[in-house]
């Protein structure tokens, strides 16, 4: 409700103003208001032409003084003055404030002219010192008043909680009433009440009136009775006493408790504008007027000079939707457009400002005074760009000071004990030290300087982290979060660091980094994708060469020229995580990690190890190449393998093996094929069924999901979570995710998979990882050495199955120890068909398939004691191994195809006793349930108590309690059922126990006890645990 100008006068004389008059008066008030604003405009124009109606609610910068002076001139009487004040109040907010100014400034001057009543009003507001009378007495009075209170205060400090409690309001105390008043006039309402109480003295029975800054629309009045409040409020236009609410006693204290969330706004603080054209813009506080809740901020102007010129010319201005871009005000340009530019001095600061159309400019910045409410001060994180802009014109003035204000918004727990810090504000500026303790806002630091007290308490806001050149740091917040690097330059609170991963300069605030001993190449990962991963994109593929906060930079597989794309996480289809190989221009095989030299194309002459291969495109990492994180994309055809590849590999034992392997297997495929599908295949499938983890290579699988759903194929290679599968029905190798495969089709696995492994050259190496292999060691002793000769042959793997005597490799090593391999002749005759394909792929097949291993393993053992029997072990492996099938019955319990062990033992019936023990080491494990079948007896269930070194087991029978030693070939693992306790019999977790929580085809879903991991394991390697 607008305030009517005359009412203030009325107030004084006549409190009982009739409501009916209001209407009329309102009209009058409007008239007055209009009149007054005209008056102001006139005055302003007369004075200096610069006063203008502002479109927004901004207050003119220097308007106050002038206005007030003009007011003074015009005003003659107190009543006039009050009228004016009232009029002002009805105006916009800032004008109200002007009014207040006048109120005080003029008050003194015009005191004389006021009538008595007025003077009485004035006195309490303007202390009586003016009168210069009886100073002593006043002093005495004051002393009396305040000393008494001070004593009381002292006393208070020592009061206990109980005594404090006693001070709380009780029922006997006056109550607090909440009274509605005009919005924005809370203080005024309270002052009016005060005035009234002074005027009326004890007539007014209220005790106090309170207006709270943060509470709009209400004031509090302390009084004993509601009637008193109403009485007091009667006639006060600003107060709507119709509604008076009692504040509950409990809440009374809260009313007067200090609001702690006071915004600490000081000069040089960075803020953001909340509204208008400048919404979201960064601004710097240059002046704060806490009383009036206004701040003057410095902004980069967004002004369309042309539009401004038009407007000033009085032309019609079309309101454009577009917000002009940030641009520093160019005065010369403005002049060109005939915009009138005034240069004037700000009386308070003595600075000169250019004044255009009521806006103040300095150094190109706009200085604008706005209400505190219209800026946001919390969590302002200026970006570098913004700061840069702000800094430009003023060169490097007040660098650290301005940055120091950034710290106001940092999060808790920012400093940690031991951090090196520097004081950036206050007396101790530039003092360095180390954080000793952090306590809320205060940080205790041990200063670096001697002669200073041991610890100093410094406000956290006055501190900045301090880094030295050469420090290795990690960025923990801001745009570059996660990066690590070394500090190369310290520029106040800004550090320039050289990123470890990209070797680029990164500018960060000291505040955003921590010293990090972490010597990684930076945390560089989003989702599943990591720096340097090869990824498949919507359009093409590439290597991630940089990870930004939300996107990757990918060097695409463009061999013509380096092409870098910025891609978002969602644009990446998948990670290409397989090991491909390619041929270089000399038809040498290039595999990952081989060193190649680029011999043609844009990057000719570069050299480095191949990191990724995809579709005959190589990604080479040349550490001398600085762009794209050292990655170069080149066609395989335009590269040459650096000769050392093979020899190099020896050292690590990785690449070399692969390399030769790859070359040889080219031939074997054809021989391999024929046997496939023949009866032996079935057998072989089983045989091989015992794949552990890696042994899946070579097995025949079915693809469960995806575009190749339902297809069957052989696994050529397994790499991480993907497998390369050669489809049976199509001449094609596809890559599928491991979890899209169901490998229960093992039965159909062509036997000859084995040699094929040779192709998947990488896999042969795996055996070493499979736990099974170690068990083979004992076997090795007899013939280990000779076998090693085999090592020279590409197949290092042979080392693993020395016993794979039948493996064609023999040719290579037989010279080493023909004797030990006496078995081989036997074997060969026995399985003539084996020959054709074994020969081409020496031993590789064996090496790869664990199943093979077992057989082999078993054999030598047997062979040594009873050599004659040796041939049989081989049977399984050779296509001729048909005999196996019958044997299979014996191991049926073990799921077909599943168990490495069982099939073997079946096949090996004759000599198998040793098998369990030898081939696998103790294949059986204690505590598992087994079925004992002995000829002529019904199967009996027993519990393995102990596994003897020769492979036989001590088994106790639940029914009879007796313990017998049973040969492994007489035992079968009891297949667990859902929710049985199980023991894992092979693979990396051999020996671990768990619970079978589900069965999916041939896979069991197992919850491992130790780790509580849920694993999917082949059922055949699971044994039921004795309860």
């Amino acid at each position, binding site marked *: 409700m607008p305030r009517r100008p005359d009412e203030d006068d009325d107030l004084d004389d006549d409190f009982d103003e009739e409501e009916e008059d209001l209407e009329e008066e309102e009209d009058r008030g409007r008239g007055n208001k209009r009149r007054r604003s005209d008056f102001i405009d006139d005055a302003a124009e007369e004075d200096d032409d610069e006063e203008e109606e502002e479109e927004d609610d901004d207050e003119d910068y220097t308007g106050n003084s002038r206005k007030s002076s003009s007011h003074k001139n015009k005003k003659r009487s107190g009543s006039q003055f009050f009228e004016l004040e009232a009029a002002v109040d009805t105006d916009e907010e800032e004008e109200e404030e002007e009014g207040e100014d006048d109120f005080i400034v003029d008050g003194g001057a015009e005191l004389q002219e006021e009538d008595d009543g007025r003077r009485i009003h004035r006195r309490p507001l303007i202390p009586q010192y003016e009168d210069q009378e009886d100073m002593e007495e006043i002093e005495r009075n004051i002393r009396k008043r305040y000393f008494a209170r001070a004593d009381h205060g002292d006393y208070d400090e020592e009061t206990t909680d109980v005594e404090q409690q006693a001070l709380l309001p009780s029922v006997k105390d006056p109550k607090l009433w909440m009274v509605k008043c005009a919005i924005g006039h809370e203080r005024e309402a309270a002052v009016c009440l005060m005035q009234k109480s002074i005027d009326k003295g004890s007539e007014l029975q209220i005790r106090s009136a309170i207006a709270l800054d943060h509470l709009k629309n209400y004031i509090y009045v302390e009084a004993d009775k509601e009637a008193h409040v109403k009485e007091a409020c009667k006639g006060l236009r600003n107060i709507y006493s119709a509604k008076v609410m009692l504040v509950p006693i409990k809440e009374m204290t809260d009313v007067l408790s200090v609001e702690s969330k006071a915004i600490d706004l000081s000069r040089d603080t960075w803020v953001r504008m909340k509204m208008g054209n400048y919404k979201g813009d960064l601004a710097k506080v240059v002046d704060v007027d806490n009383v009036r809740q206004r701040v003057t901020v410095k902004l980069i102007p967004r002004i369309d000079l042309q539009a401004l010129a038009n407007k000033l010319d009085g032309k019609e201005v079309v309101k454009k939707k577009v917000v002009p871009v940030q641009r520093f005000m160019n005065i010369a340009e403005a002049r060109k457009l005939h915009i009138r530019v005034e240069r004037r001095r700000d009386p308070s600061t003595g600075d000169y400002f250019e004044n255009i159309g009521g806006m103040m400019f300095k150094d190109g910045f706009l200085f604008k005074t706005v209400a505190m409410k219209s800026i946001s001060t919390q969590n302002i994180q200026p970006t570098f760009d913004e700061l840069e802009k702000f800094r430009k014109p003023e060169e490097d003035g007040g660098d650290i000071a301005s940055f120091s204000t950034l710290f106001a918004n940092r999060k808790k727990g920012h400093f940690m004990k031991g951090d090196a810090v520097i004081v950036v504000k206050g007396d101790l500026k530039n003092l360095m030290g180390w954080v000793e303790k952090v306590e809320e806002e205060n940080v205790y630091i041990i200063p670096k300087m001697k002669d200073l007290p041991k610890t100093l308490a410094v406000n956290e806001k006055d501190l900045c982290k301090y880094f030295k050149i050469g420090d290795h740091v990690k960025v923990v917040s801001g745009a570059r979060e996660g990066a690590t690097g070394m500090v190369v330059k310290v520029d106040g609170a800004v550090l320039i660091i050289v990123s470890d991963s990209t070797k680029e300069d990164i500018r960060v605030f000291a505040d955003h980094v921590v010293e990090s001993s972490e010597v990684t190449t930076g945390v560089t990962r989003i989702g599943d994708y990591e720096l340097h991963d090869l990824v498949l994109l919507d359009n093409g593929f590439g290597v991630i060469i940089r990870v930004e906060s939300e996107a990757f930079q990918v060097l695409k597989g463009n061999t013509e020229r380096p092409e870098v794309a910025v891609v978002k996480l969602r644009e990446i289809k998948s990670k290409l995580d397989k090991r491909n190989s390619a041929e270089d221009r000399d038809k040498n095989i290039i595999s990952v990690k081989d060193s190649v030299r680029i011999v043609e194309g844009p990057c000719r002459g570069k050299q480095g190890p191949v990191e990724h291969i995809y579709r005959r495109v190589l990604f080479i990492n040349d550490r001398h190449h600085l762009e794209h994180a050292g990655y170069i994309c080149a066609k395989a055809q335009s590269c040459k393998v650096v000769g050392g590849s093979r020899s190099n590999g020896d050292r690590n034992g990785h690449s070399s093996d692969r390399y030769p392997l790859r070359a040889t297997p080219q031939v074997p495929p054809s021989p391999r094929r024929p046997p496939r599908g023949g009866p032996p295949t079935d057998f072989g499938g089983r045989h091989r069924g015992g794949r552990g983890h890696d042994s899946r290579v070579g097995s025949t699988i079915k693809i469960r999901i995806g575009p190749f759903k339902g297809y069957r194929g052989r696994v050529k290679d397994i790499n991480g979570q993907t497998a390369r599968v050669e489809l049976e029905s199509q001449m094609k190798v596809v890559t599928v995710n491991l979890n899209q495969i169901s490998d229960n089709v093992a039965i159909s696995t062509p036997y000859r998979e084995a040699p094929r492994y040779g192709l998947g050259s990488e896999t042969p190496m795996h055996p070493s990882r499979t736990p099974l292999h170690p068990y083979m060691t004992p076997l090795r002793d007899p013939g280990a050495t000779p076998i090693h000769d085999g090592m020279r042959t590409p197949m290092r793997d042979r*080392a693993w199955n020395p016993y794979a005597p039948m493996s064609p490799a023999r040719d290579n090593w037989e010279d080493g120890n023909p004797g030990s391999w006496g078995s081989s002749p036997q074997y060969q005759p026995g399985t003539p068909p084996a020959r054709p394909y074994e020969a081409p792929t020496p031993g590789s097949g064996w090496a790869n398939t664990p199943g093979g291993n077992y057989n082999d393993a078993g054999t030598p053992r047997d062979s040594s004691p009873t050599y004659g029997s040796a041939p049989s072990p081989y049977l399984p492996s050779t296509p001729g191994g048909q005999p196996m099938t019958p044997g299979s019955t014996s191991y049926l319990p073990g799921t077909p195809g599943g168990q490495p062990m069982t099939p073997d033992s079946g096949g090996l019936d004759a000599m198998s006793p040793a098998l369990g023990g030898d081939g696998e080491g103790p294949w059986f494990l204690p505590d598992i349930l087994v079925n004992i079948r002995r000829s002529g007896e019904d199967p009996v269930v027993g519990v393995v108590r102990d596994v003897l070194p020769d492979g036989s087991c001590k088994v106790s029978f639940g029914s009879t309690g007796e313990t017998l030693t049973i040969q492994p070939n007489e035992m079968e693992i009891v297949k667990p059922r859902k929710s049985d306790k199980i023991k894992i019999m092979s693979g990396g977790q051999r020996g671990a126990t768990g619970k079978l929580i589900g069965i999916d085809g041939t896979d069991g879903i197992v919850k491992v006890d130790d780790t509580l991991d849920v694993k999917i394991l082949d059922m055949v390697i699971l044994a039921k645990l004795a309860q």
Partner: protein
Amino acid sequence: MFFHIVLERNMQLHPRHFGPHLRDKLVAKLMKDVEGTCSGRHGFVVAITGVDSIGKGRIRDGTGFVTFPVKYQCVVFRPFKGEILEAVVTMVNKMGFFAEAGPVQIFVSNHLIPDDMEFQSGDVPNYTTSDGSVKIIKDSEVRLKIIGTRVDATEIFCIGTIKDDFLGVINDPGAAS
């Protein structure tokens, strides 16, 4: 800084090497394995200068490999913060230049190049003083000070500065030829 130290290593040797030349093979393998490697603690192993002792071999279960504990003397090179090195510039770009001192790669950021040297792009990117008297191009030799090192498992990377007294170009490739 170079150090001559004694290190120990367990060497695994394939049984095929067993024989009269076992020791030679072992030493050869040691050299191949160790020289040029880098460890965070000792830095780069530059050369093996002698083998002090070769312990008894132990056959490893499962592989047949034999493990020999070998003590050897070697020269290692480890860069330290604050160390002054002479290095050859290998690459110049706008961010600074890379130089190599033996196996160590050192990056000198443009913030650590004296302010009066400016980057000139072109065929031969270089940093040149305003009067053109000093020029850093590829193959220049510079003396620099290491201000920070980052040690990976396989690499030591250093940040250097030439913004100090007596640092900078010491030999121009052009002048030398």
